[in-house]
C-alpha cells in the first residue's frame, strides 16, 4: 500500500475509534470520510489483494451481507461493513478497521454500485431486487436498473449473482455485448428468492410492453426478456443448489424472505469456492442485524423489532410477524423520505384481527391509511405507552428507518 494510503488508513481507524469513544455513533462513516479526504483512492488501495463480494439492491442488503459474511467465513477472515454504513465512506472505514483480510463482503447502497465496482474491482456482485423507495429523492426504479446495467459491462471479469424473479434486476444483469466498445456482459448465476412486490415491474424496461406473470414465471409480451432458469432456489425450508442437492437451512431470522437471502448468500459464497454443505450451518449463527429482528424482554413483553422501509419490505414484514399485538411507527424525516404517499401502496389488511397500535411523527398519515383499509387501531404517544397497552407476551414492532432507530435507542441500542 502506498505511504499516503497507509497514513490515511491509520488516521481513518483513529477517527472511528475517537468517534465511538465520544459516543458520537459507531464511527463507521466519519473514519472513512477522513481517510478518503487524505487519499481519495483509499478504498481502491484497501481493496487491493482482497477477494471481494458486493451486495446491492433495495431490500435485504444488510441481512444478506451478514449471511454472506458468515458463509464466506468458511474460507478465512472476512471484512464487512456490518453497521449498514453502505456508501464508500462506510466501505473505507470497514476495510481500514479490519486490517488485512483475504476476503471482504460489502453492502452497497444501490445508488453507489457503479462507483464501488470501479473502486473495489470485486470478484462477485449480488443483485437482490429493485423497487420504489423514498421516491421524493431516490432515482426511479427503471433509471436505477439502467445505471446498474451501464456499470456492469465495464467489468468483464465480474461474476454476477442475480435474482431471476425481479424483471428489473434480470434486465440490469443482462446488458448487450458491444465488442466495439469493449463491453462484455458479465457471467450471471441466477437465484430465485421470490418476489411478493410486483408493482414496479409491470412494464418491460427493454421495450415498454406489458410484463405478464403466471405462477413464478414472468415474460415480456413484446420482446425476449423473460425469467431465466434459476440455479439456486428455495424449496420448503431449505435451498436447492445447482447440482440439485437440497440443504436444510435453520435460520434464527424469520420469514420466507430470509430463506431467499440465505440462498443468495450460499450462491455468492459458492463463487469463492465455498461448498453449500460447509456454509449452511454457519447461517444459523446470524441472530439480529443492526437491531433488525432483535428481541428484547421488558415488563413481561417479548418485543421483536422489524424494519420496513418501503412497500415491498412492509409486505415481507407482515409475513414475518407473528399474529400478536403489533406496534407500527412511521416517521418522515430526511433518511425516511419526506413523502408518506407510499402508505397507500401497502395493503395493511393482514393486520386485521391483531391488536394494532400506532405511533411516530407521522402516525396520523398512518391512521388515515388504516381507517381506509378497515384495520382498527389505537394511537399511542410513546413506545412506553405501547408496551403498557399490550398484554404480556410477544409485541411485534414494525417501523420505518428513523422510527426504528428511535425505538432501538429506547431499548439501549439493541443489536
Amino acid at each position, binding site marked *: 500500500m502506498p505511504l499516503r494510503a497507509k497514513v490515511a488508513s491509520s488516521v481513518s481507524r483513529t477517527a472511528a475509534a475517537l468517534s465511538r469513544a465520544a459516543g458520537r455513533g459507531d464511527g463507521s462513516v466519519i473514519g472513512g470520510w477522513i481517510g478518503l479526504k487524505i487519499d481519495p483512492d483509499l478504498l481502491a488501495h484497501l481493496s487491493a489483494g482482497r477477494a471481494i463480494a458486493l451486495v446491492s439492491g433495495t431490500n435485504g442488503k444488510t441481512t444478506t451481507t451478514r449471511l454472506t459474511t458468515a458463509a464466506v467465513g468458511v474460507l478465512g477472515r472476512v471484512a464487512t461493513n456490518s453497521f449498514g454504513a453502505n456508501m464508500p465512506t462506510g466501505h473505507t472505514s470497514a476495510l481500514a478497521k479490519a486490517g488485512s483480510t483475504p476476503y471482504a463482503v460489502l453492502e452497497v447502497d444501490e445508488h453507489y454500485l457503479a462507483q464501488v465496482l470501479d473502486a473495489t474491482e470485486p470478484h462477485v456482485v449480488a443483485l437482490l431486487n429493485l423497487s420504489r423507495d423514498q421516491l*421524493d429523492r431516490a432515482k426511479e426504479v427503471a433509471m436505477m436498473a439502467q445505471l446498474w446495467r451501464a456499470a456492469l459491462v465495464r467489468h468483464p471479469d465480474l461474476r454476477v449473482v442475480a435474482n431471476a424473479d425481479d424483471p428489473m434486476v434480470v434486465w440490469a444483469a443482462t446488458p448487450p455485448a458491444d465488442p466495439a466498445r469493449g463491453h462484455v456482459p458479465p457471467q450471471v448465476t441466477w437465484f430465485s428468492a421470490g418476489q411478493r412486490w410486483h408493482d414496479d415491474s409491470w*412494464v418491460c424496461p427493454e421495450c415498454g410492453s406489458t410484463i405478464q406473470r403466471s405462477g413464478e414465471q414472468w415474460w415480456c409480451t413484446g420482446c425476449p426478456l423473460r425469467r431465466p432458469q434459476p440455479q439456486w432456489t428455495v424449496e420448503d425450508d431449505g435451498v436447492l443448489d445447482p447440482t440439485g442437492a437440497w440443504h436444510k437451512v435453520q435460520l434464527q431470522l424469520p420469514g420466507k424472505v430470509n430463506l431467499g437471502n440465505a440462498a443468495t448468500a450460499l450462491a455468492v459464497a459458492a463463487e469463492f469456492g465455498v461448498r453449500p454443505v460447509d456454509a449452511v450451518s454457519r447461517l444459523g449463527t446470524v441472530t439480529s442485524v443492526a437491531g433488525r429482528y432483535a428481541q428484547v424482554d421488558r415488563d413481561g413483553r417479548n418485543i421483536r423489532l422489524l424494519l420496513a422501509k418501503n412497500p415491498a419490505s412492509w409486505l415481507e414484514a407482515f409475513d414475518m410477524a407473528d399474529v400478536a399485538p403489533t406496534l407500527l411507527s412511521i416517521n418522515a424525516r430526511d433518511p425516511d423520505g419526506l413523502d408518506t404517499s407510499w402508505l397507500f*401502496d401497502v395493503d395493511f389488511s393482514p393486520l386485521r384481527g391483531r391488536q394494532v397500535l400506532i405511533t411516530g411523527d407521522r402516525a396520523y398519515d398512518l391512521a388515515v391509511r388504516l*381507517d*381506509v383499509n378497515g384495520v382498527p387501531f389505537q394511537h399511542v404517544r410513546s413506545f412506553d405507552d405501547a408496551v403498557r397497552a399490550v398484554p404480556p407476551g410477544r409485541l411485534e414492532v414494525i417501523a420505518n428507518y428513523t422510527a426504528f432507530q428511535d425505538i432501538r435507542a429506547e431499548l439501549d441500542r439493541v443489536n
Partner: protein
Amino acid sequence: MSTESLRIVWIYPDLLSTYGDRGNALILARRAQLRGMPVEVLEVRSDQRLPATADIYLIGGGEDGPQALGAQRLIADGGLHRAVAQGSVVFGVCAGYQLLGTSFFAKGTRCTGLELLDISSDRGPTRAVGELAGEVDPRLGIPYLTGFENHGGRTHLGPGVSPVARVTTGVGNDGTTEGAWRGKLLGTYSHGPALARNPALADLLLRWATGIHQLPPLDDTWADRLRSERRTAVAAAARA
C-alpha cells in the same frame, strides 16, 4: 350514476401509479360504501379497452416515458373522451393532470395531450418537491387544499379552466395557482393519495358523480388531525 353501483375506473395502473395513487380509488370507494352505495372499482391496464360508462375516472402520476405512452393510448382508445361527453367525473394527479391538457413535455419533447382541459405544461427551472397547500376556489365549496408535490413541470391555464387553489405553500402550477377544473374534470399537482388529506375533495367528486348534493357526514377525526398537523408543520417550516 350509470348503473345501480358507483363505477370507479383507475386508468392504467401499470403505467401511472407512482406515489400510492391507488389510495384515491380506495378512499372514494370507502366513502361511498360507508354511505351505503354499492361500488365497483375497475383497474384498467394500458393493454385493455377503457370502458366509457363509468362514473369516476382516476389518472395517477408517472415518469415521462409512461406518461407519454399513457397519453398516446388514451387518445387512441377514445373511451375517456366519450365518458367525458356523457358527463363522467375525471380526477387527474400530477402526470395524469398534465396529460388532460393540450400538451406536456416528456423526455424533452412536446407531447399532445387529451385536450380535455384548457391547460398546457412545460418544464420549470427547478423540480418542485415538498408540501403543497392552497386556498381553494370558493365555488368548489371545500376547505384548504393540503398535499405533497414532486414534479418538474409548470402548467399554464387557458380561459377554459379555473385554478383549483391559490398557492400558500409550494409551487403547484407556477407558484401562484394550483390545479385546474372545469365542469366535472379536476386536476392537481397534489400527488398520490391526494384525497387522503382532502376528504372534502373526495366528497366533491362523489357529489359530482352521483348528483346527491347532501351526502351524510362521515367521521373524519383522523383526516382532520392529519390536516391540522400538516398545516402546523408547514407554518413552522415557513417561520424557520
